[in-house]
């Protein structure tokens, strides 16, 4: 992956999948436990009640910044100072002002982020699946070497080579301006440089769980390798494709370094770059506008994440082959 791990979660992606899978299994086991008879309050508090107190403290800690930004976005006063009176007003003005300032093209950033994220996710899934199919289904010289090399290459995150990426992109811009510096297509290509690696590993493991007998049956029926891949295998491994695609989308939307290096024109930038520059120029004055931008920007990633959580678990635990 472009960033080699999932920065949204500040953790490596495969581990996330495992963790969520474990989590679900545990929760399922717990739900099956028989209901316990009612206990006296003192005993209840000693055994369970104090856990709720910690839980409530943690809820405040977790939810507070999010509630704060939501409240700030609804405050027409607009500055950092007025944002401190939580939920005192309800005014959607900041959300409209967000789209009105041409020097801060929020709408363009939003669309750019979506387009770049979706294109990168699609490309990552396609390239990763092609490679995983080759590694999983074919036997060729250099196969093990290839797998090991991928493992080694991913130790050197693209993130660290951004100086070279910048210089490479400016050299490409001399020949193909549409693919070089300040080109979104170019940025997508840079992200696709990380399409193999972690993703191929995730997919490779999953591809291996699809029995080879399915391929063989299709082959006997006259299907070629391309048809087997596109019409049979890809459908069977759809859950892992979705997981990789979503992780790649989230990683792309969260990337600042490479996007800021490649894209210089404000109309072409992504939310991460645009909002950072916006807030670093006028933090205190236009805080409610920034807060509105942050709320809108977070909706898709948070929704995807909550949806993705179930999907990862479902995809990795349920067998897709009957």
């Amino acid at each position: 992956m472009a960033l080699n791990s999932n920065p949204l979660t500040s953790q490596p992606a495969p581990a996330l999948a495992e963790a969520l899978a474990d989590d679900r299994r545990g929760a399922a086991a717990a739900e099956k436990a028989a209901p316990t008879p009612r206990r006296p309050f003192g005993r209840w508090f000693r055994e369970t009640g104090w856990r709720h107190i910690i839980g409530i403290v943690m809820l405040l800690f977790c939810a507070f910044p999010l509630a704060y930004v939501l409240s700030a976005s609804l405050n027409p006063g607009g500055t950092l100072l007025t944002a401190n009176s939580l939920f005192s007003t309800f005014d959607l003005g900041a959300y409209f002002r967000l789209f009105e300032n041409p020097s801060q093209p929020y709408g363009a950033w939003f669309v750019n982020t979506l387009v770049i994220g979706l294109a990168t996710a699609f490309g990552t899934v396609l390239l990763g699946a092609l490679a995983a199919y080759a590694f999983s289904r074919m036997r060729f010289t250099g196969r093990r070497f290839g797998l090991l090399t991928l493992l080694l290459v991913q130790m050197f995150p693209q993130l660290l080579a951004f100086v070279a990426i910048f210089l490479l992109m400016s050299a490409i811009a001399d020949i193909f301006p549409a693919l070089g510096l300040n080109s979104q297509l170019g940025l997508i290509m840079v992200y696709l440089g990380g399409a193999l690696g972690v993703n191929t590993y995730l997919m490779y493991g999953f591809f291996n769980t699809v029995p080879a007998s399915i391929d063989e049956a299709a082959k006997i029926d006259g299907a070629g390798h391309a048809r087997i891949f596109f019409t049979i295998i890809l459908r069977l491994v759809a859950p892992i494709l979705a997981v990789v695609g979503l992780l790649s989308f989230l990683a792309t939307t969260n990337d600042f370094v490479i996007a800021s290096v490649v894209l210089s024109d404000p109309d072409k930038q992504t939310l991460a770059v645009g909002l950072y520059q916006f807030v670093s120029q006028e933090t205190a004055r236009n805080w409610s506008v920034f807060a509105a931008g942050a709320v809108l920007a977070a909706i898709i990633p948070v929704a995807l994440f909550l949806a993705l959580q179930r999907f990862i678990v479902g995809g990795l635990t349920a067998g897709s082959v009957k």
Partner: protein
Amino acid sequence: MTIPTLDTDDRASDRRADPATEKRRRRAAAFADAASAGWKVWLFKIVALGIVDAMAIYAILVLVVQEQWVIAVAIAVGVVVLNAIYLIPGLLPAKYLAPGLVFLFIFQIFVVLYTVYIAFTNYGSGHNSDKEDAITSLLQQSQTRVEDSATYPVQIATRDGEFFLVVEDPETGDLSVGGNEMPLESISSPEAAGYDVLDFSQILANQAEIGALTVPLDDDLNDGYLRTTDGSNAYLFQSSLEWDPVADTMTDTETGVVYRDIGTGAFTADDGTEILPGWQVWVGGENFVRAVTEESIRGPFIAVLVWTFVFAFLSVATTFVLGLFLAVVFNDPKMKSRKYYRVILILPYAFPAFLSALIWAGMFNQDFGFINQVLLGGASIPWLLDPILAKVAILIVNLWLGFPYMFLVCTGALQSIPDDIQEAGRVDGAGVWQVFRHIKFPLLLVSVAPLLISSFAFNFNNFNIVYMLTNGGPRFADASINVGATDILISMVYKVAFVGANRDYGLASAFSIIIFILVAVISYVSFRQTKVLEELN
């Protein structure tokens, strides 16, 4: 269910088959593939290859014109290999691997190697280009008008979207035309040579470009340039620097100081002063030497290096301790509504990290932020401006961002520990704490340790939180590079390369390589731990 592994026996059976059968089998497979692929696949293949080939040929032509032979040859070889892979039947694995590998080679492997190369050059602002360009721009930027020189009547002409000066010789009245980097050449009339002469309103509309026109008198740049400010009269400008191509020196005609090319990528006087722009040269390990010897870089570099390790370690430690604690607290089947707690607890983890950091930066604001104004009742604590407090703030925010992950991981690990082990401990008389300390914790650590190591490696390069929260500040006062107390290595590299007027790509790349090495060591340790390599074998 058969699970293919690295060493399946189908290869062995292939070897046993006699050559004739094998050949027939391959041909049959090729036929089957061809029959099943269909014309759509072929059409797609031909069109895609055609586009790639056309782009490659264009790129090669441009590179040949620029005399960039190595890259041109590399592209040629690459595109031939790509065509071979898709046009020759068979080579199936390559057909599936090639698309991903192309991007991997260019945007991951090549850029890493290129980083290594840049680290050994003086590339950066002031050293962007080659020597020829540097000489041209030195002579241009040091121009002053030659006093008492003739006035040249001029017209402004345009051709192909560029501007040119049509100059009338003040003595002979002959016409000649010239443009940027195009010395004057005589013509009979501008229209005959294909130029359109601008009228007054067009001149007004393009004042900036016309004012920037510097037309060399002839091929010897030392003879000077013609420039115009009003579009009707031009004057002779000469550089105060004089370039001697034979001796390879620049001489300042006013002070008489001679600047020589001493191999450092800029013309340098005997007393060590350089005139910039210079050009790009190979400087060997000088960037690395600078990083560890030059006092104004070494100090901040060591501080940043130490803080990077401290930050990565404390990030993992704090998130793990809190996550584990919460996992233990919530791991009670009798506790109701754990589900709802869990959803809220993973919210910080679902929220985009760069946004969280920006929001926290607002809350930590010294004068207006929520923490000082409301939580601390109007205090004025410089959370992000004091070196120690800024580090504390970063750790707090990172704790907020990172503990849900550890919570999920630890919950999973705790629940996978079989109950009967704990029961056995209980029966033998161990208390709750002892069971946790001596049974659960060691077992948990076995499954969680690899994740802790990869979490450490991630936080080592956790650019977003540092850059978005404190921007690396407060800045070190004594540093020659733009670095501050909370910068970690990756954000320092970013600032050296891209923030501020003085961009030093060479030094930044040298730092990148140092990070590469550190990351490699960390990853090696983690591989040893996780035994991923052993699994592959």
